[in-house]
């Protein structure tokens, strides 16, 4: 088969996923006509609450990283939450009556402390809603406790598949807003196959904990289906929080890969790219990351090389969807920037949208039942809910309480308008989320298969392999 032909076949293959590049449309399923927008309401669109609404404030608990290296993720999450809270309160609160009061706690205190803090928040502060949580190590510990305490929970992140695959297989009170973790590695793989279809030799550097393992497994699995004959030539597993990567970089250079997949994030990624740059790594291979643009946008300097697949946890970057197609995002970014003098991250979008999602569910339930709805009524509205968020359409699947929105990634580029690198607008790859996540009710691990995630099993069993 000649080269041209191979290229054609693979394009057709990628097309099956509906992945679009550049300025193509928002590829999500329509969510009906009366879209609910995660933003302050315009004056003429106010909803009339039904029945008696108490004026008592809504107590919200929010645990996120306020210290340590992961503050790079937690800080923007907290600011997204506060912005939504201030906006909702400025309009009189939820249902025009109940203002939101949030208690914050530091996720860096550790899993055990977080569990204790959630119990304290419920038992002694009597919170109505629990939000936040960044670490994939923490949601599987907090989820079962939230169910036990019967506290309505909207996790911001902590996106491990394990949470709804195993830790809380039949969630009632727990929901999660940001995309599921396996989508991250798969998105990086589709971005790699789209931009660099000729790569075959793969090197990997991942933080040595569940997230890095998940990224590596799903990246290699998906890329193996997308590109024929790939080979893993080097693996590195530095400890989370490392800052010296020189030995890893030298090892990777020695293995001569075509592409390096990087799951390092936050300060780890900053320290990594600074060293990799001086060791000439970016000149010798393509680099695909899952979280390079995941922290504060300005955490990455303009010395960051262009043309790196700069992941955002497959969730959101503030320049996409673009202003002309999705004004909701432009308006959100402006409000956020005005309030915090910086640009939002995917955690900002997640935490912000989570609070509006709650408000939306309460309002819908109120229309149906009148008065202040109980948790059961709110949960019924959250299941299957759709909301127009800054990142695009977000919907909450009823079967597993997981939020789904189209996954995105793009290539880094320095544009003169920004003091930090952003995505090259023509390089953005947007993937309909249903193309890369296991469908509703797909068997969970331990039920008919022993893959690490339902997604891995689904990819293995249903994706065709690219022909050589």
């Amino acid at each position: 088969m000649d080269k041209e032909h191979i290229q054609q076949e693979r394009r057709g293959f990628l097309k099956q996923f509906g992945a679009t590049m550049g300025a193509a449309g928002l590829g999500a399923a329509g969510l009906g006509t009366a879209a609910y927008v995660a933003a302050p309401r315009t004056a003429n669109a106010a909803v009339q609450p039904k029945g008696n609404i108490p004026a008592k404030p809504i107590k919200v608990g929010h645990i996120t990283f306020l210290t340590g290296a992961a503050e790079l993720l937690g800080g923007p999450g907290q600011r997204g939450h506060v912005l939504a809270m201030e906006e909702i309160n400025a309009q009189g609160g939820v249902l025009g009556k109940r203002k939101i009061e949030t208690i914050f706690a530091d996720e860096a205190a550790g899993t055990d402390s977080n569990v204790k803090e959630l119990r304290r928040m419920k038992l002694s502060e009597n919170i109505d809603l629990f939000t936040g949580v960044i670490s994939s190590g923490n949601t599987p510990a907090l989820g079962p406790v939230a169910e036990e305490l019967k506290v309505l929970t909207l996790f911001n992140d902590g996106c491990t598949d394990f949470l709804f695959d195993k830790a809380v297989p039949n969630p009632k009170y727990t929901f999660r807003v940001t995309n599921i973790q396996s989508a991250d590695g798969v998105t990086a793989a589709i971005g790699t196959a789209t931009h660099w279809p000729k790569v075959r030799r793969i090197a990997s550097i991942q933080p040595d904990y569940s997230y890095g393992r998940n990224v590596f497994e799903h990246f290699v699995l998906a890329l193996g289906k997308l590109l024929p004959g790939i080979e893993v030539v080097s693996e590195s597993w530095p400890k989370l929080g490392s800052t010296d990567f020189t030995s890893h970089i030298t090892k990777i250079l020695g293995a001569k890969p075509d592409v390096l997949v990087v799951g390092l994030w936050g300060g780890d990624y900053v320290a990594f790219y600074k060293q990799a740059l001086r060791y000439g790594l970016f000149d010798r291979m393509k680099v695909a990351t899952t979280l390079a643009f995941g922290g504060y946008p300005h955490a990455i300097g303009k010395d960051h090389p262009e043309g790196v697949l700069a992941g955002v946890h497959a969730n959101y970057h503030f320049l996409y969807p673009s202003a002309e197609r999705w004004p909701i995002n432009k308006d959100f970014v402006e409000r956020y920037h005005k309030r915090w003098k910086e640009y939002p991250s995917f955690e900002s979008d997640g935490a912000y949208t989570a609070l509006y999602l709650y408000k939306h569910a309460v309002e819908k339930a109120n229309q149906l039942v009148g008065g202040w709805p109980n948790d059961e009524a709110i949960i019924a509205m959250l299941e299957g809910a759709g909301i127009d968020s800054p990142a695009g359409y977000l919907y909450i699947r009823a079967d597993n309480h997981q939020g789904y929105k189209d996954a995105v990634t793009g290539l880094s580029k320095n544009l003169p308008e920004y003091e930090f690198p952003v995505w090259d607008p023509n390089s953005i790859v947007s993937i309909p989320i249903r193309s890369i996540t296991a469908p509703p009710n797909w068997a969970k691990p331990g039920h008919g298969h022993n893959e690490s995630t339902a997604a891995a099993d689904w990819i293995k069993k249903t994706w065709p392999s690219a022909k050589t």
Partner: protein
Amino acid sequence: MAIRQAAPAVRVRKKKTMEIVAVQVLNSLFYAAVLFLIAAGLSLIFGVMGIINMAHGSFYALGAYVTAWSVAAAAAAIPPAALFIFLPLGAVAVAVIGLAIEPTLIRPFYRRPEEYQLLVTFGLLLVLDDVIRLVWGGTPLTANRLVDFLGLVQIGALPYPVYNLMMIGVGIAAALGLWAFVYRTRFGVLLRATAQDRRMAAALGIDVGRVYALAFGLGCFMAGLGGAIVVPSQAAVLGMGVEVLVVAFVVVVIGGLGSLEGALVGALIVSALRTITIQFWEETELAALYLIAAIVLLIRPTGLFGRKS
């Protein structure tokens, strides 16, 4: 014919392997230099004062932040070569803070049991980490100008930053300087005398309080210098202090707490072992360090150069 064709390919591969080995040795030495600065300070403070300083990693982080911040602040105003002044300056700033902390926070706890000293220095760790976050925020700070100013050398086909070579030199100079200071100066004699028997030293008229303060300041200077020299090649990030503290403890456990030679040998062992596992058995990068520490503890509970207590 076939053999003659194969020979150059083998030679090329051999040459490439040598390049990788050479760079890995340098990587290892650079890491060892930083580890030595931190572990030596930790050991010095323990050797003289009997304090296990849990906040030592935070002093390292403070050195990194002060240097990165001052380099960024002064970069526009002064030529790049002059920015190197901020490396020792970061260390001096940390030493000054150490000199202020010893008499106020540490001194009242000398007569208390060890767990109180651990608690107070651990508290100091938490306070310093929060201070760093309050002052500089969560965004990583960098000082790459220093690395870029010195440029790169080619080791075969692989580029290597000249800055890293220089800092290996700084590490060696610091080791020699510290050795000369402790074993060849009058203050070194006072330091060792105080370490051996505090009450006897005091009875002989040595100002023990001053020796303690200076030892603590010197230990902080070393930690600050470690942070200052590492930051241009990496970045100053939250949590870097705790991260390095754990490895520094592995170093002193292997080398022997309180021994400078131990800190040097421990740093070299830990750093070489880390590089070897990264290169050949990537899955054991973390386990190997703790395993070797456990083996040393089993065979020589006081570490390779530790004194029997």
